[in-house]
């Protein structure tokens, strides 16, 4: 074996790397293994997987390219990174699709064996970019991945297909070396994954090491990088994806409330993973029902709520569109229910595998008649856990359906997560009605629509409770008795009452926090998954000495009572959204202020630099 050269090591605060290749090249796996190693290296991080809409698009095509982007560092990491420092491209298509993301002088590692006529044609390259000098603005490193892999494994006893499929392990090893990451996590993972397939196991381990050594032995690399641990809060951490953390938040809600969790759903990207995760944890008294469609799913969920379960139904935009009639019934019957909308690119089928925030107005107004309900939004993968928990708590406390908004970026993205202590979660008391609560001509009676003074919630009386028999339904209800009522005044009274109940949820909203300057020129008001990009931009703005702050809304209905006051402390309110301007409509309608929209509708999250640019522009225009 060739002697090892010790390459110069350079310490850097942060780095963004992107693995890209065919759907079949195992880039998602490579990416998550690198993420794991990075987590162990105690860096802060954020990831952005990006896969094609096709299940297995034909090899070599540009639309078949699957990518995994990772941003990590010793500093606070809030986004998957704007410009890429290292691109690992397994074939021409992967290079073609992702080159524009690489920063000038950034490093590109390519599998040079893949740059042959057929693949170049598939990627629609006129000439070979490795030779035509079109890449000279970058540090290009050609690695004969395919050949090296085949050589390494010629005696492995694996067939060609299996051998070629494992070249990503070589790439992983090389990348780990380049950024001085530990190989142990990957080794452990491989060992237990392929425990039963010794041949594959050995092959993968061998390639991982070979890749690592390749870095040490080749002279291609002038420097090697080191990223020291981030100053994260003390405690136990794990990497977590949004769909997993959302599912766990629901489990936690069931756990703390003592209610059985009923998750009624119908598969849809990008919400399905919540179902997949929940269905693995039946021993938490979790019931998952895959219904025949979204309408049946929300119907079954409402039935479960009536019976006393914690009813939750999850879907994406097109599914919410189908559930709205039943959500209206939940508003009328005042049963607790949580509707999770993992938003994706719309309208219609739109861009099903991409992220977007374009269901906000549907969440607020997409029902017939006056049917208000609380709407909450999660802002990071880990935050999904807490918002899911909070949505459930409010649904039960106020006896109302609650809409929780997530999106494709949160669902698939991951971040290091300070594991919470279950004891620190807000209390989740539940009281079922067991006794008669009213009187009618001298007789004790049950009033299913009597009200709690503080919350205006009606009692939750479960079928099976002796003496509390009552009938719910979608026709207007008489105050207190809950009987059908066509009385005009009662109708108006009940409309106002249901609206007031939802307004009362404002009691649950903590004082609005402002990140950055507390008063100044620009306040960024955001919601949902844009939080990371916004706060990164604010940080950069402050380094530039700009007077910028940001606040991020968890509750979009009702809105925080102190929001106007907070906004009044700034001259301009910038509202970045991954839609054509939805929250800004709500703000303009209810508040005064100089509201400026910043919209991106490309199926991708904001880059911090995009928000930064908007700030710069506003500041140059507002300050003469």
């Amino acid at each position: 074996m060739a002697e090892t050269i010790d390459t110069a090591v350079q310490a850097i605060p942060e780095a963004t790397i992107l693995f890209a290749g065919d759907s079949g090249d195992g880039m998602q796996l490579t990416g998550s293994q690198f993420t794991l190693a990075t987590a162990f290296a105690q860096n802060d991080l954020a990831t952005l997987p990006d896969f094609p809409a096709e299940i297995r698009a034909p090899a070599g095509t540009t639309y078949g390219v699957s990518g995994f982007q990772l941003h990590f560092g010793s500093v606070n990491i809030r986004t998957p990174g704007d410009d890429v420092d290292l691109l690992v491209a397994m074939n021409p298509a992967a290079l073609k699709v992702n080159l524009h993301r690489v920063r000038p002088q950034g490093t590109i590692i390519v599998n040079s064996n893949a740059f042959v006529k057929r693949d170049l044609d598939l990627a629609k390259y006129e000439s070979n970019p490795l030779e035509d000098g079109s890449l000279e603005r970058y540090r290009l490193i050609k690695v004969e991945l395919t050949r090296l892999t085949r050589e390494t494994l010629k005696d492995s006893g694996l067939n060609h297909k299996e051998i070629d499929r494992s070249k990503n392990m070589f790439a992983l090893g090389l990348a780990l070396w380049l950024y001085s990451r530990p190989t142990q996590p990957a080794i452990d993972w491989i060992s237990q994954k392929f425990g039963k397939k010794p041949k594959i196991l050995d092959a993968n381990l061998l390639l991982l090491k070979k890749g690592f050594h390749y870095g040490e032995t080749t002279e291609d690399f002038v420097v090697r990088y080191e990223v020291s641990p981030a100053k994260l809060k003390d405690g136990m951490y794990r990497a977590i994806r949004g769909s997993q953390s959302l599912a766990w938040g629901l489990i936690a809600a069931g756990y703390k409330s003592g209610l059985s969790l009923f998750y009624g759903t119908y598969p849809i990207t990008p919400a399905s993973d919540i179902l997949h995760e929940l269905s693995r944890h039946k021993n938490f008294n979790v019931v998952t029902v895959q219904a025949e469609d979204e309408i049946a799913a929300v119907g079954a969920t409402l039935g479960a709520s009536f019976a006393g379960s914690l009813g939750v139904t999850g879907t994406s935009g097109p599914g919410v569109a189908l559930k709205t009639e039943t959500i209206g019934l939940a508003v009328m019957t005042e049963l607790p229910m949580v509707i999770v909308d993992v938003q994706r690119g719309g309208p219609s089928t739109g861009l099903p595998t991409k992220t977007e925030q374009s269901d906000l107005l549907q969440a607020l107004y997409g029902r017939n008649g006056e049917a208000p309900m609380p709407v909450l939004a999660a802002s990071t993968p880990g935050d999904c856990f807490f918002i899911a928990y909070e949505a459930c708590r409010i649904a039960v406390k106020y006896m109302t359906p609650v809409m929780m908004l997530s999106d494709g970026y949160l669902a698939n993205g991951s971040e290091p997560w300070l594991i919470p202590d279950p004891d620190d979660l807000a209390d989740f008391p539940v009281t079922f009605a067991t006794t008669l609560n009213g009187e009618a001509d001298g007789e004790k009676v049950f009033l299913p629509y009597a009200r709690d003074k503080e919350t205006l919630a009606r009692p939750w009386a479960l079928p099976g409770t002796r003496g509390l028999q009552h009938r719910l339904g979608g026709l207007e209800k008489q105050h207190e008795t809950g009987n059908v009522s066509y009385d005009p005044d009662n109708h108006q009274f009940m409309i106002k009452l249901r609206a007031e109940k939802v307004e009362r949820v404002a009691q649950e909203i903590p004082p609005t926090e402002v990140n950055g300057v507390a008063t100044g020129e620009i306040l960024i008001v955001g919601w949902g998954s844009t939080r990371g990009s916004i706060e990164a931009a604010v940080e950069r703005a402050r380094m530039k000495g700009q007077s910028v702050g940001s606040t991020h809304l968890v509750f979009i209905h009702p809105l925080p009572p102190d929001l106007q006051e907070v906004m009044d402390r700034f001259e301009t309110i910038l509202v970045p959204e991954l839609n054509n301007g939805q929250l800004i409509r709500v703000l303009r309608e209810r508040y005064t202020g100089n509201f400026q929209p910043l919209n991106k509708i490309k199926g991708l999250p904001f880059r911090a630099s995009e928000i930064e640019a908007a700030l710069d522009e506003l500041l140059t225009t507002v300050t003469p």
Partner: protein
Amino acid sequence: MPAGLNAGGDGALSRKDFATDQDVRWCPGCGDYAILAAVQRLMPEIGVPRENLVFISGIGCSSRFPYYMNTYGMHSIHGRAPSIASGLKVSNPELDVWIITGDGDALSIGGNHLIHLLRRNVNSQLLLFNNQIYGLTKGQYSPTSEAGKVTKSTPYGSLDHPFNPAHVALGADASFIARTMDRDPKHLKNTLKEAHTHKGSSFVEIYQNCNIFNDGAFLAFTEKSSKPMTTLYVEHGMPMTFDKGKQGLRLNGLTPEVIDLTDGYWSVEDCLVHDATDKALAFILTNLFWQPDLPRPFGVFYQIERPTYEDLLHEQLNEVTERRSNGDLRELLRTGDTWSIGA
């Protein structure tokens, strides 16, 4: 517990105990009254405590039903009762769940939920009030209306070929399929009782007269004069005879034909004997639908035992819980790869 609560309590209950203080708002003469009466009479017999009974309906005249039963209930939205009932039953299998629906509610907007309820076999009784019309919306044709029907929405006659509800249920592999009618209270009550005894989704089609918008749709089967010749009451294990035993039904190959039992050529021995567990027979029997010269069968056509959805679900839940023991949240959050920072 306060006095009032005993109201829902034990002791022999009577029909009246199942009535509510709400005025029944169907048109005078509506067949729905007879069905309500039959159900209220049946309740004390089956001896399920009122608080464990739940009636879930959709929307339609028939779906007003729950308001008149002093039990738990939900008058939900159009066509969705089977879904809501499924979630309810799964969440609390102790409950005795009854689904009340109409021919439009169940077979038009609710068709999909109906067939999925039946295939899953959620233990419940589904009562389909078939009046072959949309009553509540004041008289449009329904998926069971005969083709060519003149209604508000079809002044020149409807074009749609009607469903045969029993065939739809059979196609969905229902485990219990029966037919009865509002005008035969005894048969109605007994059929409902058998449906209740059956463990699984019981599909019961009830011919119901809408005397306002489709009066006399089933006259042929209810009028003393014609009834004997037009109706065939089937019972498991019994030969198929009708017309006071004067006529019978036999199979010629796979084709049913009526035989005269009076002229001495055919006898009861030649009649088809009903076997409610034979799916093919159930199909052939329920195929007697608007067929000239052939009687319309009533009774339990098909009944087999297969596991209910909620039983399977809870078995799995318990099995997993036993194997993995009750979930511990703190543990769950720490499963997989974790690392510590600081101390």
